[in-house]
């Protein structure tokens, strides 16, 4: 077990994580190949955020292993994970409200000591021009979408080898969601950032990602290429809301079951 293929930035094997007495992850295994976007879909309480926190070191798994760049990292502290090249863009943005936009970005590069930090801030401003306009403003006074952009930019500043994006669409308008995911796609293509993306918005996540996992009450129930998942009937029915058009009325919906149960 645990044979490391060089293409995988991260490998998670049979991870079980608890919140006190509650078992939130019941043996999850995922791979994140280098240069790809991998998405994890699931409803509320499926364990998506728990998986992210386990991977980034904020929670320690009870069982199972996490390897990052070929080394076992489960049980490490989050700040050590950042030093290893993992950036976590947490759910709900979590910017530093009383610091300026630019200070927030600089904190993203906290673990770096090279001289290119200034150039990277400029790069962030290229992707998110609105942040340049607001560079001196307190981050807490930004709008939700701008805060999300700041959170992503801040994660980028660590020059991560893997970026965790926890629900970047949370609370944003559909137009803004399109814009943010466009930039996520561009970052992946132009900067080669490998990403692990957690989303409730299955439509946009599958359109952005290369590969997808479906998480339900702590277990992976489906795993496939994003395009295959997008076409799958189960996903259509349970995550994309129908797709059967007018026929839905004829169908006995209550009889339809998920094939993985």
């Amino acid at each position, binding site marked *: 077990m645990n044979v490391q293929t060089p293409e995988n930035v991260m490998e998670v094997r049979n991870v079980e994580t608890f919140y006190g007495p509650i078992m939130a992850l019941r043996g999850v295994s995922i791979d994140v190949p280098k240069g790809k976007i991998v998405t994890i879909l699931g409803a509320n309480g499926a364990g998506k955020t728990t998986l992210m926190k386990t991977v*980034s070191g*904020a929670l320690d798994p009870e069982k199972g292993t996490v390897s990052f760049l070929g080394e076992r990292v489960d049980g490490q*502290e*989050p*700040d050590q994970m*950042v*030093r290893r090249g993992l*950036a*976590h*863009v*947490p759910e*709900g*943005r*979590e*910017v*530093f*409200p*009383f*610091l300026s936009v630019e*200070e927030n970005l*600089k*904190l*993203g590069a*906290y*673990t770096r000591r090279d001289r290119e930090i200034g150039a990277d801030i400029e790069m962030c401003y290229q992707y998110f021009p609105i942040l340049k306009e607001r560079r001196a403003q307190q981050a*807490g006074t*930004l*709008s*939700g979408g701008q*805060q999300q952009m700041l959170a992503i930019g*801040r994660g980028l500043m*660590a020059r991560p080898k893997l970026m965790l994006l926890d629900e970047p669409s*949370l*609370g944003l308008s559909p137009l803004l969601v399109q814009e943010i995911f466009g930039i996520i796609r561009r970052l992946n293509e132009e900067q080669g950032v490998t990403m692990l993306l957690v989303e409730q918005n299955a439509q946009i996540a599958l359109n952005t990602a290369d590969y997808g996992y479906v998480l339900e009450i702590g277990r992976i129930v489906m795993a496939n290429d994003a395009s295959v998942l997008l076409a799958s009937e189960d996903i259509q029915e349970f995550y994309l809301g129908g797709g059967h058009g007018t026929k839905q009325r004829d169908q006995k919906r209550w009889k339809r079951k998920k094939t993985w149960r």
Partner: protein
Amino acid sequence: MDALQLLIGGVANGCIYGLVALGFVLIYKASEAVNFAQGDMLMFGAFLGIAFINEDRGDLPFLLGLVAASLCLGLIAYALDRFVLRAIFGQPQFAMVVLTIALGFVLRFVAGTIWGYDPVSLETPFAGEILSLGGLTLAVADLLIILATCGLTFVLWLFFGRTRLGVAMQASSQNQMAAYYMGIPVKRVNSIVWGLSGVVSAIAGVLFAAKGAVEPSVGLLFGIKAFAAAVIGGFGSLPGALLGGLLIGVIEQFAARYAPSGYSQIAPYALMLLVLILRPGGLFAQIAQKKV
């Protein structure tokens, strides 16, 4: 003239209250709990200063003794957080409250055992010296306290605004989890904040000892007044803590001069009550609504 004289005396006292309140706020922002041993840290710093500076003890020059005392207390405070408080990391806030109250007792008895329970005062080169300026008679000690506080405030302002560690401290007090995700070693940063609070307390203690006598229980009353100062400033704001301290120092002086006797004791708390009624968040409340 009388009023100006009182004002300067009050500001000097207020500076010390303000510095202790600053120590409160620093720790509150780092550990999200009030350190009820703050006043006792001032007392301990004062004794350390006396031990280093007084002729019959360490006999160091005043400035050198001040630096030595603050380094010592800084290290002690760092170690307290590293080895004692970190052990209850993640426990309810109440655990920390009880623990810091207990630490206060410990500091008091340790100081009593080492230095005795009789009041001692610090020998300074400027003790009892007076400066006459027009109609004003100013104690040199008061002026030095005000100057030192201004200097320290400026240094702290530069530190928090400009240095990597200072900004990281601000970040971890604003959002601990996110600070972790930035790669900031939050626990170590918190211990350093404790150390910093120790340094500030020691400076406040030495300045206090330059004005009057110190004995082991002096920190108790002082801690309560400085706590009131921090509340007035809006617990969590550094400039607020200093301002709160100044207000308390000044109002105490004026109440002692113009109000019937005894009122100067309750004046600081009356002010705190008034502030809490009019601006429940304190004068410099930092309250931000989180956007979703």
